């Protein structure tokens, strides 16, 4: 199952500078594990003590996974997964 993963600038040291990479998995956790097997060290940047890092947001097709199962949120073939650092955003 191929998922397209967008990597933020701050984590591209792990992907040799690539903006987007492919990964397999049927849940967010599986996709992150697969990413880590291909790009060493990535998982430690994203996951702390079994949950997503406080300042990391992960979206499957633009939806924040924290509200749809977190690391166990399901991912389907052809989905896009976007990783972004948390920044304040919005009408201020």
């Amino acid at each position, binding site marked *: 199952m191929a998922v397209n993963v967008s990597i*933020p600038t701050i984590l591209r040291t792990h992907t040799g500078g690539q903006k987007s990479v492919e990964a397999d998995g049927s849940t967010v956790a599986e996709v992150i594990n697969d990413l880590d097997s291909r790009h060493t060290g990535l998982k430690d940047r994203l996951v702390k003590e079994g949950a997503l890092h406080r300042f990391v947001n992960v979206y499957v097709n633009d939806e*924040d996974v924290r509200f749809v199962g977190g690391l166990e949120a399901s991912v389907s073939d052809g989905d896009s997964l976007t990783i972004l650092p948390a*920044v*304040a*955003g919005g*009408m201020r």
Partner: protein
Amino acid sequence: MARYDSLLDTLGDTPLVGLPRLSPSSDVRLWAKLEDRNPTGSVKDRPALAMIEAAEKEGTLTQGCTILEPTSGNTGISLAMAASLKGYGLVCVMPENTSEERRQILQAYGARIVSSPAEGGSNQAVTVAKQLAEQNPDWVMLYQYGNSANAEAHYRGTGPEILKDLPNVTHFVAGLGTTGTLVGVGRYLHERKPGTQIVASEPRYGELVYGLRNLDEGFVPELYDADVLNRRFSVGSYDALRRTRQLLEGEGIFAGVSTGAVLHAALTVGERAVAAGESAEIVFLVADAGWKYLSTGAYGGTLDEAAQQLDGQLWA
């Protein structure tokens, strides 16, 4: 009654407008809460005035004081209006990649602008403002990201207005910035109408804005309460622009770009309701009108060109 003793008294009681052309079906209807009808043309008049009044009550804000605030524009404009009427000075810390109109309005109101670097976006403005506050102990930072009066303004105003106008509301969708709107309205609706879905639409900017040096520089506003939200979407500039134009062409509402992102999330939950065979009454918040974004090219040219032009700018 359309007579008021002061501009500040015209705050709130904004129209809730049905969108018959954009609604996904006759059972899944969209309603726009027009916050551009507030005194300075944005939803931010509500928290700005609430924060000032709370600080006056506490005695931290007194005649002749200078207010300091990190803002990407609208809160600054609201504070500038209120500060000029009440006799306070204002210093706004603003990322340099915000629209020209916002800077000009702030300056016209007499505010002083301190620019923070574009890379790092709004959270760098927060960092710079906190440093300035330390250097200038006589300045008063209201700090919209952590000031409970911000969410309170929506708990007391925006939320009750929505429920009064649309007792059968099923979803509330708004932009996620300081998180005050969603947290305040969300808490009110969860209390008064349990089961209402609170949906966040977060702007997804170009890469420049996420230029942190490390992940721990990330920022989650102190007001943020994930328990109030049911879903959260991240919407990029292309979809935000597409929906902003759709709202203008389809329903005649000339909204700012962030509203396009909010409409995108509202339509997403609406389409899911249609697919599930459910009925829905979806309220989404129009934070401001389009006037302050004309210079960004958002309303002309092809969508691709306009989205490219917006890349690297803060459009919400």
